[in-house]
């Protein structure tokens, strides 16, 4: 309790601090977690405030472990975590303000969607769990009167029920582990919009993903995690540029590939090239943006027909490897 609260014996100002002063809602400092020999999260530090933050990383990067640490499901081996100024493992009262969508698909199969979300509300001690459960289900476009058990639900429907149980108690910190998996494009858009609205309301929304396009839609703030380490942090555009600001390899298919490659080299648009066959070459460039802008122009100038430009290493893995390998 703060000194003021102790004096007045009334409202704990420290507890409402997050809205009175710009204290970070989520704070990780030097957090490490390992499972046996596997280092899942290594020396990660960041602070987050209100709004949507994407946690981006390839499979096995440590995203789920990081999110589980945030929700207090596992203790860190090193470092400290603070959610709304509290340690989520030592102080379970703070769980009232945290919502989590875990990665696993399983839910309580013997319950209906309403029972599942209602139970979450009851266990969170909210005053009107009935109403809140109906509203939460409506927010994810599920019918609260559906009598079917969750065991009969599709993957996408389960995903939405999981989101409903995470917001039924109006949490301030919402942690979602790959919440868009299994959803159709329309539902993806709907969910993304919901996350943004929650962020605009002042909630700290953390969404993990291994899909770059998805992250682009989540918004501007991104944490990139690879091999357990925080590889980059900041605005999505800055991170995208960082990812693109590296040697790219692309395959060009054309009726005059060699001639085209020669001109590109002469213009400084590519750094190196490798002849593949009579119709294609592989080129390497450091500035993929201006390469893409200019390759068609050069082709037109020399009268070559460009059939295809395919990036060879645009998969996220190579991007992450590059980011992690940076000094």
């Amino acid at each position, binding site marked *: 309790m703060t000194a003021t609260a102790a004096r007045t014996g009334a409202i704990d100002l420290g507890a409402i601090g997050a*809205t009175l002063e710009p204290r970070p809602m989520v704070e990780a400092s030097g957090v490490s977690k390992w499972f046996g020999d596997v280092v899942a999260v290594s020396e990660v530090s960041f602070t987050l405030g209100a709004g949507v933050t994407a946690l981006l990383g390839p499979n096995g990067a440590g995203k789920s472990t990081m999110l589980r640490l945030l929700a207090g*499901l596992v203790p860190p081996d090193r470092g400290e975590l603070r959610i709304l100024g509290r340690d989520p493992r030592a102080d379970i009262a703070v769980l009232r303000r945290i919502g989590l969508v875990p990665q696993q698909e399983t839910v309580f199969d013997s319950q209906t969607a309403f029972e599942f979300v209602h139970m979450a509300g009851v266990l969170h001690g909210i005053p009107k769990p009935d109403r809140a459960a109906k509203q939460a289900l409506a927010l994810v476009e599920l019918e609260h009167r559906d009598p079917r058990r969750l065991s009969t639900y599709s993957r996408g429907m389960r995903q939405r029920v999981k989101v409903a149980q995470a917001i039924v108690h109006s949490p301030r910190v919402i942690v979602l582990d790959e919440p868009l998996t299994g959803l159709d494009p329309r539902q993806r858009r709907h969910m993304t919009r919901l996350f943004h609205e929650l962020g605009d309301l002042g909630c700290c929304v953390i969404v993990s993903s291994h899909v770059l396009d998805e992250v682009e839609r989540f918004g501007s703030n991104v944490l990139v995690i690879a091999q357990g380490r925080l590889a980059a942090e900041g605005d999505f555009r800055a991170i995208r540029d960082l990812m693109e600001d590296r040697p790219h390899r692309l395959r060009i298919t054309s009726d005059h590939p060699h001639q085209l490659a020669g001109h590109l080299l002469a213009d400084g648009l590519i750094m190196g090239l490798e002849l593949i066959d009579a119709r294609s070459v592989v080129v390497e460039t450091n500035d993929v943006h201006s390469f893409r802008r200019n390759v068609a122009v050069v082709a037109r100038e020399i009268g070559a027909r460009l059939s295809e430009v395919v990036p060879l290493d645009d998969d996220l893995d190579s991007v992450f490897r590059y980011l992690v390998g940076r000094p």
Partner: protein
Amino acid sequence: MTAVLGSRARVRPWSRRPVPRRGRTSRTPGAFAAIYRLMLRNQASIGRVFAVMALGVGAILLGAAVGLQHTVDPVHDGAELINRYGLTILVPVVTLVFSSSTLGDLIDDRTLVYLWLRPVNRLTVAAAAAGAAMTICLPAVTVPLVICAALTGGGIALVGGTAVAAAVGVVGYCGMFVALGLRFKRALVWGLAYILLWEGYVAKASKTASRLSLRAYTRSVVSQYTGVRLDQAGLTIVAAVLVPVVVGIVFVLLTGRRLKKTAVD
């Protein structure tokens, strides 16, 4: 773009709600009932119910068989049957099946997170799990055993002793096996090892080991009620009734403590 949250957001500015003070977790009325109901429903699987019914019918048939033989000492023979079949197999095995899975199943299918994430005292979760297991096991073992005892012709003392022994056994074993389900991935195997190896062999070898097996207490109840001398059953009625109940309670407390510290998948 239409708003998803709509008017709800305006009515309730969630982001401004204060964080409850530390330790304020007990204000979740209905938490015990909700978890208890969930556990009861999870346990009601056809396979389990069928297996338990088969064991119960077995007890009744055995009781009838002993009764029909019209032996010289039906009290002694009845007590031996209750001891050998009821207290040695039926009570521990049925409670093992239903207790170890209350929390164990949630760990296996990774749904424990949906209880753990809530600001609910961990002891409440442990107590609800044990309570649900007992709710199923008490009738599931007491009813067939009491019928069995009655059919042997052992009289009211045997029937009463059997009912009390089965009930205190259920309380002790339930607490123990709920904890086992939280602690071990293969709780059924560990539980059977305890029942068969520890209670079956090791407990026979030494008096101390015998005191550390619940069966010594449940037997003593039957022995005290009927006056029949049973193997490793020399405890007073007070100890025989109290110790299993205390064991059950202590294991529920331990389960609550372990839940607090456990890493949840």
